[in-house]
C-alpha cells in the first residue's frame, strides 16, 4: 500500500466516489471475515462482547439449574434426592459458577460491548487481548463443568477454605479444579480490565472531558481498577493452595509455621472488592439508563461519580468483616465494623440521587425502568441486612446461617442482576437491531421480583431460627420444613421468570420489531450509530459538546473527519480534556489469540496433575505469544 493509499481519508472520498463510499470503504477495512476461521480470528469488540454476554448467561442458566436442584433437595426434611457428596459439589459449583463464570464476566462483557460505543471510538484498546480473554474464560468454564460431570467437581465451598481444601482433607483433584478455575477466570478478567482502562483514558471522543463521561463508563473504569488491584490476591491464594497440594509447601499448614487464616485474608482481600466489582457496573448501567425513562439528566452527576470512586476505595478496607467469627483481635473487628458501615454513606448518596432524578422527572414505565424500581426495593433491603451483619455480636449469631444466604442474594441479585436484566432490555435493540417484547418483559419483571422476594425473604427467618448454610438435609424436629417447602415452591416462580426472559431474548433476536437507531430517545453516543452498529462503529468520530450529546445536538451530530479509510485507524485523545492527540491504528483480526488461549488452557489444566506443566507447556505458550506479536507488515503496522 502506497502512503497515498494508506492516507486516503474520508474528506476526499465522497467527492470522487459518490454517496455511501465512506461506509463501503470502512466496512471493507473493519469487517470480520465469514466462516469458521473468521469467527475464531475476530477482534471486533462487539462480536467478542456479544459472545461474552451469551456465554455468561448460559452459565447463569446452568447455575440456576443447580440452585433448583438444591431447592428440590431442601423442600422437605431428611430428603434423599441428592447424596451429601453430590450436594457439596452442587452448592460449591453454584457459587463458584455464579461469581466467577457469570457475575464478573457479564459485567466485563457489557463493558467490552458498550464502552467503545459509549466513548465514541471504533474498537476497544488491545482488541486481541479481548479475544484471548474470551477464549480463556470459555475454556475455564468448560473445565469446571466437565470436571463436575466426571464427578470431580469442587466440593469445598465457593471460597475453598483451608484446611478443608488443603492436602489433608481434600484428596483427589477436586480442590485443584477449583484453584485453576480461579486462574482461568482471573487471567481473563485482568486482560479485559487493562483494555477498559486504556480505552476509557485514551480513546474518548474529542470533547468528552472527565465531566462528560457517561456514568456507566466511570463505573466500568473503577471496576477495571478494582479488578487490577483485587484479583492478584485470589490468584496468589489459589496458586499457593495448589502448591501446598501439589509440591508440598506449607503456607497453610500450622504444624510447619503456616497459617489457615492466611487463606481467608487472601481470599477476602479479593472477595470483598469482588462484591463491588459486580455491583458498581450495575450502578453505572442504572444511572445511564435512568435519564431515558424520566426524560431529564441524572441528578447529582458529581456526587454519583464520587460515590462510585469512594465505594471503589472503601471496598478494600472491609474484608475482615467476613472473618468476625475467627477470633481476631477486638480492636481490628471494631475497625472493620466501622468501615463496613461507612460504605453505606456513598451507597446511600447514590440512592438519594436516583430518587431525586425520578422525583424531578416524568417517568415512563417501560421494562428497563421497572427493573430499576425492582432494584431499589430489593437492594435497599439487602443493604440494611448488610448494616446488620456488619455488627460483630449480631454477625456472631448469624454467621454461616441462611440469614447470610438471604443477605447476599438480596444484594447480588437485587443489586446487580435486576439492573443487568434492565440493561439487557435497554441495550438489546442496539446489539441486535430488534426490540424485546414489552408485554413479556412486564411478566418477567413481575415473576422475578415476586419470585425473588418470596424465595429469599423467608431465608432471613430460617437463618434467625438457626438453619445453617451448606447442609444437605435436616431433621423434621427442627421445624424448618414448612418454610423450606414455601421457599422451594416460590423458587419455581423465580425460575419461570428467568425462563421467560430467555425465551423472550431468543425470540426477539429473530422476530422482534426493528428498533431503529435510538428507540428510547436516549442521550449517549452509542445511540448515534445504527442498530446493530457497523464493524467500524461510527462512520466519523463524534465530537462531544455536552454531557447529553444526543439531546443537545438534535439537528445534526457534530463529527470529526480525517481518519484513513484504508486501514484501521482510531483517535487517541488526552486523558483530562479529550483533546485529539494522535491518529493511531487498531490491530487486524488474528487467529493467534485463540491459539495462545488454547496453549494457556493446556498449561493450566495439565498443572493440576504435574508441576512440570509450567515448564513444558510454557513453550507452546511462548510460541503462540510470539506469533501474536510478530509484525506482519500490514498497513496498520506503518507509522
Amino acid at each position, binding site marked *: 500500500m502506497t502512503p497515498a493509499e494508506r492516507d486516503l*481519508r474520508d*474528506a476526499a472520498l465522497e467527492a470522487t466516489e459518490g454517496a455511501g463510499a465512506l461506509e463501503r470503504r470502512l466496512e471493507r477495512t473493519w469487517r470480520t471475515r465469514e466462516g469458521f476461521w473468521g469467527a475464531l480470528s475476530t477482534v471486533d469488540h462487539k462480536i467478542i462482547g456479544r459472545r461474552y454476554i451469551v456465554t455468561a448467561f448460559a452459565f447463569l442458566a446452568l447455575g440456576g439449574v443447580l440452585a433448583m436442584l438444591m431447592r428440590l433437595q431442601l423442600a422437605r426434611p431428611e430428603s434423599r434426592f441428592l447424596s451429601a457428596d453430590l450436594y457439596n459439589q452442587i452448592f460449591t459449583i453454584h457459587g463458584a459458577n455464579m461469581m466467577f463464570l457469570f457475575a464478573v464476566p457479564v459485567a466485563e462483557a457489557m463493558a467490552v460491548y458498550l464502552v467503545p460505543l459509549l466513548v465514541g471510538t471504533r474498537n476497544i*484498546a*488491545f482488541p486481541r487481548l479481548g479475544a484471548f480473554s474470551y477464549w480463556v474464560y470459555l475454556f475455564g468454564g468448560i473445565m469446571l463443568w466437565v470436571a463436575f460431570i466426571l464427578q470431580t467437581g469442587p466440593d469445598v465451598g465457593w471460597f475453598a477454605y483451608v484446611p478443608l481444601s488443603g492436602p489433608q482433607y481434600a484428596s483427589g483433584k477436586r480442590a485443584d479444579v477449583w484453584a485453576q478455575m480461579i486462574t482461568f477466570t482471573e487471567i481473563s478478567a*485482568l486482560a479485559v480490565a*487493562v483494555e477498559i482502562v*486504556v480505552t476509557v*483514558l*485514551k480513546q474518548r471522543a474529542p470533547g468528552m472531558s472527565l465531566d462528560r463521561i457517561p456514568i456507566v463508563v466511570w463505573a466500568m473504569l473503577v471496576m477495571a481498577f478494582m479488578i*487490577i*488491584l483485587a484479583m*492478584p*490476591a485470589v490468584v*496468589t491464594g489459589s496458586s*499457593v493452595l495448589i*502448591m*501446598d497440594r501439589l*509440591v*508440598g*509447601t*506449607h*503456607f497453610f*499448614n500450622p504444624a*510447619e*509455621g*503456616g*497459617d489457615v487464616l*492466611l487463606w481467608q485474608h*487472601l481470599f477476602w*482481600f479479593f472477595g470483598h472488592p469482588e462484591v463491588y466489582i459486580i455491583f458498581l457496573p450495575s450502578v453505572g448501567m442504572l444511572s445511564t439508563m435512568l435519564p431515558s425513562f424520566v426524560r431529564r439528566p441524572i441528578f447529582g452527576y458529581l456526587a454519583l461519580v464520587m460515590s462510585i470512586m469512594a465505594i471503589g476505595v472503601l471496598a478494600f478496607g472491609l474484608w475482615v468483616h467476613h472473618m468476625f467469627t475467627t477470633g481476631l483481635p477486638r480492636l481490628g473487628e471494631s475497625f472493620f465494623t466501622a468501615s463496613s458501615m461507612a460504605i453505606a454513606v456513598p451507597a446511600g448518596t447514590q440512592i438519594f440521587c436516583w430518587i431525586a432524578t425520578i422525583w424531578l422527572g416524568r417517568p415512563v414505565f417501560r421494562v428497563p425502568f421497572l427493573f430499576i424500581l425492582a432494584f431499589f426495593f430489593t437492594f435497599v433491603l439487602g443493604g440494611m441486612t448488610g448494616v446488620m451483619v456488619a455488627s460483630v455480636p449480631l454477625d456472631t449469631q448469624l454467621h454461616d446461617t441462611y440469614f447470610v444466604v438471604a443477605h447476599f442474594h438480596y444484594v447480588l441479585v437485587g443489586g446487580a442482576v435486576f439492573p443487568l436484566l434492565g440493561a439487557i432490555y435497554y441495550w438489546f435493540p442496539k446489539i441486535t437491531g430488534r426490540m424485546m417484547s414489552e408485554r413479556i418483559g412486564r411478566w418477567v419483571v413481575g415473576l422475578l421480583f415476586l419470585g425473588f422476594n418470596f424465595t429469599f425473604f423467608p431465608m432471613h427467618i430460617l437463618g434467625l431460627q438457626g438453619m445453617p448454610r451448606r447442609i444437605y438435609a435436616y431433621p423434621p424436629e427442627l421445624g424448618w420444613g414448612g418454610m423450606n417447602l414455601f421457599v422451594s415452591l416460590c423458587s419455581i416462580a423465580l425460575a419461570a421468570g428467568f425462563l421467560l426472559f430467555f425465551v423472550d431474548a431468543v425470540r426477539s433476536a429473530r422476530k422482534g420489531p426493528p428498533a431503529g*437507531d435510538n428507540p428510547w430517545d436516549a442521550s449517549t453516543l452509542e445511540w*448515534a450509530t445504527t442498530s446493530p452498529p457497523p464493524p467500524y462503529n461510527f*462512520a*466519523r468520530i463524534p*465530537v462531544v459538546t455536552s454531557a447529553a450529546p444526543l439531546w443537545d445536538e438534535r*439537528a*445534526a*451530530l*457534530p*463529527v*470529526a*473527519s*480525517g*481518519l484513513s479509510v484504508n486501514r484501521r485507524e482510531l*483517535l*487517541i485523545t*488526552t*486523558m483530562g480534556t479529550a483533546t*485529539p*492527540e*494522535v*491518529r*493511531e*491504528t487498531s490491530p487486524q483480526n488474528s487467529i493467534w489469540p485463540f491459539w495462545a488461549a488454547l496453549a494457556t488452557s493446556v498449561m493450566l489444566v495439565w498443572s493440576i496433575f504435574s508441576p512440570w506443566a509450567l515448564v513444558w507447556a510454557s513453550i507452546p505458550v*511462548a510460541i503462540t505469544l510470539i506469533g501474536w506479536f*510478530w*509484525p506482519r*507488515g500490514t498497513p496498520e*503496522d506503518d*507509522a
Partner: protein
Amino acid sequence: MRHRVVADLSALPLHGSGSSSQTWWGTLAFMLIEGMGFALAIGVYLYLYSLAPHWPIGAPPPDPVPGGVIALLLLASTVPNLLVARWAKRQDLRRVRIGLVIMSVAGVLPLIVRIWEFPALNVSWDSNAYGSVVWLVLGLHTLHMLTDVMDTLVLMAVMFSRHGDNRRRYGDVEDNSLYWYFVVLTWLPIYALLYGVPRL
C-alpha cells in the same frame, strides 16, 4: 443521525510515544498488576513472619552474596537501558540493535546467577512455611525476569528483521526499557526483605 463535520483530524501525527501511546498505558497497567502481586507476596512473607516465634524457621539465614551480585548487575544494567531508550527516541536503528544485544546479555546474566541463589536460601520449599514463602517470592521474581528477558530477546529479533525500522518498534523499545526499570526496582525491596528480615 445526520452529520455536521466540525473538525479535521488529518493533520494529527500517525503514532505517539509516551503518554500518547496505548502501549505505554498498557505497560503501566501490567506493572500495577504485577506490583500488586509482589506486594501480596511480601505481605504473605511478613504475615508468616509476624506469627512465627523464631525467624527464619529451622534454617540459617540465607547467604546474601548471589542476590547481592544480582542487585549490582541489575543496577549496572540501568545504564545501557537508559541509552537504548534514548537511541530509540532518536530512531537510530544501528545503536538500538547494539543496545538490545547488550540488554539481552544484561537480562540473561542475573538469571544465570540466580541458579546459585536458590541453594543460597539454605532451605527447601517443602521444609516449612518459611522455606515455602522465600521460594515463592524468589520464584515470582525469577518468573518476572524470565518473561521480560524473553520479551527483550523477541524484540531484538524483530529489530534485526525488516520490520525493525518503524516508529512503532522504536516505541516498543522505549516501553520495554521502561518495564526493565520496574524489574530492577522490584528487586531492591525484595532483596532487603529476603536477606534483611531473617537477620533482624
